[in-house]
């Protein structure tokens, strides 16, 4: 009797949670195709189209704003940040995972702590560096600065993955005729691929969502990325271009959400093993 009562409750809870998380996205998607007259009319149902839907706002976003430039900038910055992060975090994490004794664990933890320093504290000194290097107002300032967040986090995440690879595998490969680098490349790395995938998604999404560096280091519209460009371009004074704003964010959020969904299990596994290793 009790279990029979439990099941509907369980599903009701799930439906509620699903609605809670998807409604904002649904609202955004519906808003994109709404006519302004309907959008701003009191008493109209936000989830229904009372007048016919339109593609105007989407077309406006891609033709009359700098959104394509922002998106391209975001893509370039994202890819470069991912490349830099993976190139540096993978060897760092492997080295830390194979460091015997307490130093490996301590440095792993120390690296993670760096990630916890908020960017709001760092952007002023970092801005001086960016200016001194002549990178202000270019996308290169973000390519340089964003890895300071992503590398520590990804190193820590990968540390858990590399720790879960038994060191005997490296040793077997060394005895089987490999150099240390070959052993890493052929035997260890293939087993950390899920972790690297998680790092790629994390670094890319962070480079997209970071706002404070993007706004402070780049004030030129042509060099801005989505996170800084969209609010400045689509909010003029106190006029909000709501449908286009919604379009700008949804276009980016949905593919990213799917990528996260696909890699969710790996992300959780990475957090778990990294946490367990850092105890």
């Amino acid at each position, binding site marked *: 009797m009790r279990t029979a009562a439990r099941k509907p409750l369980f599903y009701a809870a799930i439906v509620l949670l699903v609605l809670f998380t998807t409604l904002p996205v649904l609202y955004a998607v519906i808003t994109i195709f709404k006519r302004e007259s309907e959008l701003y009319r009191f008493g109209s149902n936000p989830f229904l189209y009372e007048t016919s839907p339109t593609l105007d706002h989407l077309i406006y976003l891609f033709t009359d704003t700098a959104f394509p430039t922002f998106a391209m900038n975001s893509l370039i910055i994202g890819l470069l940040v991912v490349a830099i992060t993976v190139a540096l975090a993978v060897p760092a994490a492997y080295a830390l995972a194979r460091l015997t004794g307490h130093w490996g664990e301590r440095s792993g933890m120390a690296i993670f702590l760096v990630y916890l320093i908020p960017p709001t504290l760092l952007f002023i000194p970092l801005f001086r560096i960016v200016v001194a290097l002549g990178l202000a107002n270019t996308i290169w300032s973000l390519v340089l600065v964003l890895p300071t967040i992503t590398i520590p986090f990804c190193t820590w995440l990968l540390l858990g993955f590399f720790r879960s690879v038994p060191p005997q*595998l490296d*040793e*077997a490969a060394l*005895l*089987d*005729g490999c150099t240390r680098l070959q052993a890493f490349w052929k035997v260890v790395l293939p*087993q950390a691929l899920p972790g690297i995938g998680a790092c790629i998604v994390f670094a890319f999404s962070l480079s997209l969502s970071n706002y404070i560096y993007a706004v402070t280091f780049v004030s030129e519209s042509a060099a801005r990325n989505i996170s800084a460009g969209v609010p400045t371009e689509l909010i003029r004074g106190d006029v909000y271009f709501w449908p286009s704003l919604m379009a700008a964010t949804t276009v980016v959020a949905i593919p990213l959400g799917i990528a996260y969904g696909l890699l969710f299990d790996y992300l959780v596994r990475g957090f778990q093993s990294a946490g367990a290793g850092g105890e």
Partner: protein
Amino acid sequence: MAILTTRALKKHYGRIIAVDGVDMETRDGELLAVLGPSGSGKTTLMRMVAGLEEPSAGELFIDGRSIVGVPPRSRNIAMVFQNYALYPNMTVRDNILFPLRARKMPPDEQRRQLDWVAGILEITDLLDRRPTRLSGGQSQRVALARAMVRTPDLFLFDEPLSSLDAQIRSQARGELRELHDRTGITTLYVTHDQTEALGLADRIMVMEKGTVHQIGTPQQLYYDPADTFVAGFIGDPPMNLLPLDGRIIGVRPEHFHLAAEAPNDEIALALDIEVEHLEFLGAEWLIYGVVRRGVTEQRRPPRVIGRLRQAAMPTLATGETHHFVVTRRDACVFDPETGQRLSQAKVAVA
């Protein structure tokens, strides 16, 4: 085939000494078991031979050539790890071919070697599987195949049977020995299990606290332990060590005789033993007792374990005291200070 030699080999980690001056030499083609309790330095010794650890001091030679500083890949030594260390991202075939590919062996030769080794180890039908889909026994065979496929100079086994079920362990032991006789490759076999060492090895090296106590055949170790450590370590139950007249007398459990049934021989020990309890093991009985008279007086009377090689119920009963003797031929005499053996060897040196 090769001869491995170590000279004053040492390894310490900070202040902790793992291996403390090991001098040893294998014979060509022999299976030498390295036996010792955990923390005795046997695994560290093996890792130094493999090149996975650099010695702190001392020398290592294969066929007279020093291998200190030579990277593992250039030593032509194959190792079977305790957990087998099969590459999980590759099929069994790719696992076995891995050392050949790393050495850039021509493909047709690779194929020949693979067929040969898969035939010997009867794993031909496993070649396309992933290591995660193998049983313990199958994983062990694959690990052996990967080690054998490139015909190394030296085999290193790090407790290869310890992760197998007890039922298939003795069978695997037999197969290992057969395999060794077939290839004739000098093998260093690290284990803490004396049954494995005694049953498998040509010779056994007993280690404790980083030093070698004795190297000898299983028979030598059993009948002629070099010191009290080996005497107390080899044999199940081990040798009884009893104090008498400023010396220590070692007696194997099966060498206690009831006074009435004693052989007509020179007697080394005459003891009154109170039987505490009896243990039935199938083909034999173990007798646990306390020595009441016949040894040097101590605050606590020493306990002994005797073995009776019969299936029938012994005539002894718990609580009774009986008179036992040990012949001089069966007894080993040790120096209580150094633990070193004083009496003559009984087994001819091989």
